[in-house]
Structures are given as C-alpha cells and as structure tokens.
C-alpha cells in the first residue's frame, strides 16, 4: 500500500487528537479510526470521547484536541461568543445530514393523537411543558424550536427549555421530568424500546437534508496547518463514503455499540442508522441519516451557515446591537472553508457543487431557505 499522500500534499502535523461525542452520527470518526483511513493521507488519528459539548469547546480552545465532531451551531456559537468564550472558528466539512428526532413522552404522544394538534396536546398537561435539547446554540435546540414554532408553540414563552445530557434523556422522560426531547440517535430508539416515549418527528421532516455535525477546528489551526486540514478532510470524506454504503452500516453499528463508544446494544443502533426503521409511528421510515451521498452531504454551504445566524436572531440569542454580527454572509463565508474543502475533495475525486447555490428544500412550515 502506498502510504505517501497521493498528492504530495504533506501534512505539517501528523498526529491529530479528534474530539467526539458518543452518538450514532459519530460513525465516520469511529470508522476512520478502526480502519485507519488517515494513514493513506499521512495522518494518525486519536479519538477523544467527550462527556459534553462544553468540553468539546473548551478543549478545542485550549488546544487539547485539534479538531472535533461538533454540532453545526456549536461552531457558530463560539465564533460569535454566545454565552461563552469567543474565538475564530472553522467548519472544514459537513459530516452528516438528518438522523435526529423529537420524542414525546408516551402520555403526550397519546394526547397528540387524541387532540390532533401539538398545541392542544400540550394544554392537556395543565402546566408548562418541559422540553430538553442538548446545547443552547446547537442543532437540536434549533430543530426543536423550529418545529414547535411551526405548530404555533413559542419555544421561549410557551415551554420550559432545558439541557440534559443525551444518555440521561430517557431516564428523565421515564421519571416524568420531561415531556419531550430533541437529540441524536440512538436515544430515541432507546426511549421507544423502554416504553418511555414515542418518536413523533424526524429532523429530516423539519428540514429535509439539514446539515447536522461538522468537522470543526479553530481558525488558527486551519491557517497554521493547511495541508493537515486538507488531509483530514480527505480522510473523513473516505470515511463518510465507507459508512454511507448500506452494507457497512451494520458493521459500524457493532463498533458504535461498544462500551468505549456508545455502550448501547447494537440492535438499538442499527435500525435507525440503516434507515430500516424510524420508530413505531412511521409506516415508512423518514429520510435517514446521510454521511456522503456522492459528496452531496459534505460541502459546507455558506447559505446553510446563514440559516443558523438567522435562527439565533429569531430566538434572541443574537442581538442586532452585537457589532460583530452585522454581515451574516461574511460571517458564514469566514467560518465555512469552502475553498479548502474544494481543494481536498478534488484530490480524492469527490465532486463539489459547481456553485454555492443551495438546493431548494421545503421546511415543515412550508418555508424555503436560500
């Protein structure tokens, strides 16, 4: 096997510590490590499992990890310093689309069936509903808020929004501390298997093919080690391509099931990772998680970055008075390293879109984002 980088694009830094959070969509990182996809590009990857998104952020900023599997919104939150430290960040590529969901408690799911609308179902509780998500500026918060708002429920006024670590969501649901939650898999499959709740909507039904986790690093890292960043994008593109092949998703489920990754039985991971099953309320499973799709998954579109900024404004996380946040297009262009991505993708023959135009997807409320 030829171990030299195919292009002669020799990485400046060859040993990389990569942070990840134990979720089904960490699959490309786990595959990249198990099969050592990095070696061909001159990289050794060291996976560092993190207990929280706050830990991912702090360790990126302190340099303890070089890059991370991160919530799209987490990266934008750091760039803008929303509720925490501010630092210039980079999104090198999108690692997956779709694959998240909202689960309601069994009681609330039944009320939804009886009442016919979420608003009416929530009214049957006779108290403010409690919904959990995973990080204030993260994707799950925004999918949840968008979905609630589309049904006339104001996420800042009509519900109590809390953050609970995903592995503890099901427990909280069972104990009646929660009425619903939005998070990644396999926690929705776990909730259904324990009879604690029912998955009522997949995030691909809120925004079809929404970007979810990204490969993130500090801007300084991308500037200092550009060849390393390109090598890592090439490595992860190959890992995403491998994981996306249907015949490999069962293998990766077994690896994810291990105690040093998710520590959840494979039988609860595989059905939703392969898209065979989306939950018992779905006669036909909704659009499942996608990691590659011929490269269509991975290009870090600037317009998608702008969507996150627009949502932060919508929910009051970003104020007009914030001087740093004036030009959304410029912010998203600064964070999403489209040129670096194009260079890296071309080296491994992965097609990138000819323009930055976003494919037209219709959101759950009928809106279209461009």
């Amino acid at each position, binding site marked *: 096997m030829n171990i030299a980088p195919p292009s002669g694009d020799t990485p400046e830094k060859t040993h990389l510590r990569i942070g990840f959070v134990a979720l089904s969509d960490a699959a490309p990182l786990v595959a990249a490590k198990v099969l050592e996809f990095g070696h061909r590009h001159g990289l050794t990857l060291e996976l560092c499992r993190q*207990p*929280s*998104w*706050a*830990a991912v952020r*702090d*360790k990126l*900023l*302190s*340099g*303890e990890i070089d890059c991370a599997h991160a919530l799209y919104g987490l990266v934008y939150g750091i760039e803008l310093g*929303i*509720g*925490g*430290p*501010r*630092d210039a960040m980079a999104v090198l590529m999108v690692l997956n689309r779709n694959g998240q969901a909202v689960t309601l408690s069994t009681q609330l799911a039944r009320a939804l069936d009886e009442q016919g609308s979420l608003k009416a179902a929530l009214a049957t509780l006779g108290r403010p509903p409690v919904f959990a998500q*995973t*990080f*204030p*500026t993260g994707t799950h918060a925004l999918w949840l808020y968008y979905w609630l708002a589309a049904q006339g429920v104001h996420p800042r006024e009509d519900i109590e*929004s*809390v*953050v*609970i*670590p995903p*592995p*503890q969501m099901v427990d*909280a649901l069972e104990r009646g*501390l*929660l009425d619903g939650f939005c998070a990644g898999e396999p926690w929705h499959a776990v909730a259904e298997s324990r009879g604690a709740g029912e998955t009522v909507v997949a995030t691909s039904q809120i925004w079809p093919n929404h970007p979810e986790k990204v490969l993130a690093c500090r801007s300084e890292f991308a500037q200092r080690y550009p060849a390393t960043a390109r090598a890592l994008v090439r490595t992860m593109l190959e890992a995403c391509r491998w994981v996306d092949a249907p015949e490999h998703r069962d293998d990766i489920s077994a690896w994810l099931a291990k105690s040093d990754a998710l520590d959840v039985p494979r039988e609860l991971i595989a059905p939703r990772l392969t898209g065979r099953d989306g939950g018992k309320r779905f006669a036909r499973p909704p659009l499942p998680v996608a990691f590659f799709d011929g490269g269509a998954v991975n290009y870090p579109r600037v317009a998608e970055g702008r969507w996150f900024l627009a949502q932060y404004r919508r929910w009051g*996380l970003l104020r007009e008075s914030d001087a740093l946040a004036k030009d959304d297009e410029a912010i998203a262009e600064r964070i999403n390293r489209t040129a670096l991505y194009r260079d890296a993708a071309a080296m491994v023959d992965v097609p990138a879109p000819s323009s930055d135009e976003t494919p037209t997807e219709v959101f759950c409320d009928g809106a279209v984002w461009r």
Partner: protein
Amino acid sequence: MLRILLVTDTDKPIGELREALARLGYDMLPEAAAPHTLQKVVERERPDVVIIDTESPSRDTLEHLAVMNETAPRPVLMFSHDANQALIRSAVDAGVTAYTAEGLSPEKLAPVLEVALARFAHEEKLRQRLAKAERELDDRKTIDRAKRLLMERGKLSEHDAYATLRKRAMDAGVRLADIARRVIDAADSSR
C-alpha cells in the same frame, strides 16, 4: 460574600473543596448532582460561582442557563480573550472549571479557582504515585512467580532463573515484567 455551588457528579472529589472554601470564608450551597435538579437549584439559589468537573456531563446544562438566563452563572472561560490563558489551560488540565455570575471579576475568582486547582493538582500527583506503586508491586509479584516456575520446571537455582529471565528480556528488548508475564502465560496454556 461569594456564594459557591459545587457540582459533584463525577469521580473527582469536587465535594472535598467544600471545607477548604468554607474555611476561606465562602458561603457554600448544598450540593446538586443530577442535571435536571441542577437547573432548578441554580435558578433558585443564584450562586455567584459554580465549580464543576470539566468532565461532568452536566456542563451543557449550565451552558444553556448561561445563554438563556442573564442572571445565571456564565462560564469562566468567558475571560479567555482577556488575559488568563494559562489559568484556563491548567483548569482544563486539572479537570475543574467554574461558572461565575456576570460582572464578577477574574481577580475575585482567582483565589477560588486556585484553591480548586491546587487541590486537584495534589490529588492527581497522589493518584499517579499510587498507580505507580501498584504497578511496581504487581510487576514484582509477576517476576517472582515466573522465577519460581523456571526454578521448578528447569531445576534452576534462583539466581539462574533470574538470569534467564533477564537475558530473555534483553534479547526481546522488553521489560522484565513483560517477559515474566509471557512465561506465566505459556505455562498456563500448556497446563
């Protein structure tokens, strides 16, 4: 007086800071461990500082409070663009971090964090020393067992058995304890 909340939901002995900080005159609030009670306790008690293990899964709960609620404690790493990069790095290394009420200056926080850091640096050193001692004891037991095996089976003197082990270790370029383990494994599997 600063009101301090300790979150103790990992293995690290954050709770042991209670006494040290109380002695320094800080007002220590009752502990809150589980994430779903943490939000309620912070909202009710309004602590000035929350000290938590950097590896705690509950940290995202505090992050959410910091963003959604202006009166909630905010991550002390807010100060990262000011000055104290070294303090932050050592906080992350030592496994402790803090969230403080807005407007609380880094100078006021420094003694609190320093107590926490000193406590954990000490703890970590002890832990490493203990682990090393345990490993050495374990190695010595393994070597003794392998030596006895060679003595019984090869009818060797203690001195010769030891010399045999040492030669094999040097030839293989590994530690003596590793060779001893191989000898024991081979004897176990041939039994």
